[in-house]
């Protein structure tokens, strides 16, 4: 409990200071002192978060970096410094390279798929019609399902003996298959990912509703077909939102450990049950940490993933220049459809 006390101290601090400042800072006080007080207040208000960032994010990251240069196994008291040996192993370890390739494939498949599906749903939801709110809520509902709940539900649906999936196959005269095993498990994983697409739909829908109606109206009057106004007006104006989804989607997919939830049988220590096809990078990292106790090597894997994520994000930002329109002020937006109509 002592730690709580330390961390809460910044909170009550400003009250007495504010009382003290009442005399000094009022009408006669100089403007500079007011500004200084505001600056101090800023750091009092944001201080707890900054402290937390340093202690609970930056420091653990640094600690993992240090571990990655050692042969730590979490048990022996004095891990030995082994330089870049762990990183050299990353480049030659077949399990690592395979899981990385698998994660790359998973990302390359699910990110475009979910964004495209989310956009299509959002466009449908953007039509004016009765019951729009109900449709939106129901399509979004799976996205609020806790991951363990979603995983267990999918295990029940795709259960070999009692699941609905094999029940359907049986209905059409096919033999049931072991959905949660190797050639099929990856498709279950992708279906599970797609089930939560409501999240992306909501963000795209908010983006669509921000597009000024006059712009689309002007295009229609000028004779643009619905498809033309979608590809030449809606998509460009929506591009910042889509870009945001690409970045967050890539980050989420690369660090995904969703396969765990359809192979649940125990704690992260029991990860051996994840089928080969679903053995993503993060599952590999958790296995190295907790099944094999190789803290040093697993930390190196984490840092490699971190570096890959940073690098990819930077590349996506670079590639987006010229494709993403950030200026959506009405004046600029109004000019574009006019030139389109001239064609």
């Amino acid at each position, binding site marked *: 409990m002592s730690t*709580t006390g330390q961390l809460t101290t910044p909170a009550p601090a400003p009250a007495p200071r504010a009382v003290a400042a009442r005399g000094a800072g009022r009408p006669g006080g100089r403007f500079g002192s007011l500004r200084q007080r505001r600056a101090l207040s800023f750091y009092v208000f944001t201080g707890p*978060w900054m402290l937390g960032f340093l202690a609970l994010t930056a420091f653990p990251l640094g600690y993992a970096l240090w571990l990655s240069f050692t042969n730590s196994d979490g048990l022996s008291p004095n891990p030995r410094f082994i330089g870049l040996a762990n990183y050299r192993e990353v480049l030659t370890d077949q399990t690592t390279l395979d899981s990385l390739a698998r994660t790359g494939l998973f990302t390359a498949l699910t990110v475009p798929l979910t964004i495209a599906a989310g956009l299509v749903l959002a466009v449908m939801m953007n039509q004016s019609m009765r019951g729009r709110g109900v*449709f939106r809520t129901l399509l979004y509902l799976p996205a609020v399902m806790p991951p363990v*709940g979603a995983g267990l539900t999918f295990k029940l649906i795709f259960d070999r003996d009692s699941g609905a999936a094999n029940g359907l196959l049986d209905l059409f005269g096919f033999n049931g298959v072991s959905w949660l095993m190797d050639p099929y498990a990856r498709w279950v994983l992708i279906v599970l990912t797609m089930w939560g697409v409501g999240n992306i739909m909501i963000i795209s829908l*908010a983006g669509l509703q921000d597009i000024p109606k006059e712009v689309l109206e002007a295009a229609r009057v000028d004779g643009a077909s619905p498809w033309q106004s979608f590809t030449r007006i809606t998509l460009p104006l929506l591009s910042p939102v889509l870009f945001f989804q690409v970045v967050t989607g890539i980050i989420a997919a690369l660090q995904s450990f969703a396969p765990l939830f359809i192979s649940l049988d125990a704690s992260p220590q029991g990860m051996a049950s994840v089928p080969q096809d679903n053995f993503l990078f993060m599952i590999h990292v958790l296995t190295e940490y907790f099944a094999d106790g190789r803290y040093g090597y697993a930390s190196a894997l984490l840092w490699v993933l971190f570096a890959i994520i940073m690098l990819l994000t930077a590349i996506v930002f670079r590639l987006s220049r010229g494709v993403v329109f950030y200026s959506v002020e009405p004046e600029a937006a109004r000019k574009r459809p006019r030139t389109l109509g001239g064609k």
Partner: protein
Amino acid sequence: MVLPRRAALYMVLVGLVVLFLSPFGWLLITALKDPSELRVLPIHWWPHEPSLGNFQQALSFWPYLAYARNSLMVSTLYAVLATLASAWAGYGFARLEAPGKRIVFGVLLSTMMLPQIITLVPTYLLFGKIGLLNTYMPWVLWGLCGAPYLIFLFRQFFANMPKELEEAAIVDGCGQFRIFWRIFLPQSWPVIATSLILSFSWTWGDFIAPALLLDDDRTTLAVRLAKGYFTQHGEPLSNLVAAGTVMYVVPVLVLFLIMQRGFVSGIATSGLK
């Protein structure tokens, strides 16, 4: 031409809704089945004698309510602290100026993108060293620091409030703390509600952090439920798993349905930055 197009749109949407809700349907059907109906072909699409007995059994097979209480404690603790701390920090980012603010705000935005899982394992190792494993202290600490996403939500809300509000208060001699506590916080209940529900659901749904940080008897419902229900001979009891899962997810789904409006617009803001 207009009418058939509208009708087609409705048909597609109804089809999609049925598809999206079918997993919930199967979960419920399985939860109502007698064990003898689980492994039969052709499959029973509706239980012949639907009964609520599975729910009762799921509660007593292992101490379900004790784990639910653990989940409730951790989630409430985190939700309350994180909401207060995020409002606190959000106020600073929205209404106060200081040298270095741009940089600090940049760090905040980039931590929104930072993969959480990457810091979790090293954090677990560090918490182990200072004796915080198998306690709820990690959630207290995480809560007290606020969550970047919630801070951002509060910042957006506070930044849109009229300047006259605080100017009048400053003239009256109010300090920043009182302005925050007496004027801004009471006005922000929609964001507070969204933040409470979001952070509660995150923790209620979280699997990996409690799986790492807590022992089997203090852990949350999510972790215990993931281990499932088995007979003495190791046969899985799918009907109990289904009943247990229904009871586990219903609170979160109900919270969402109650708070739907604020919730959805809150999520949507994240994409509009």
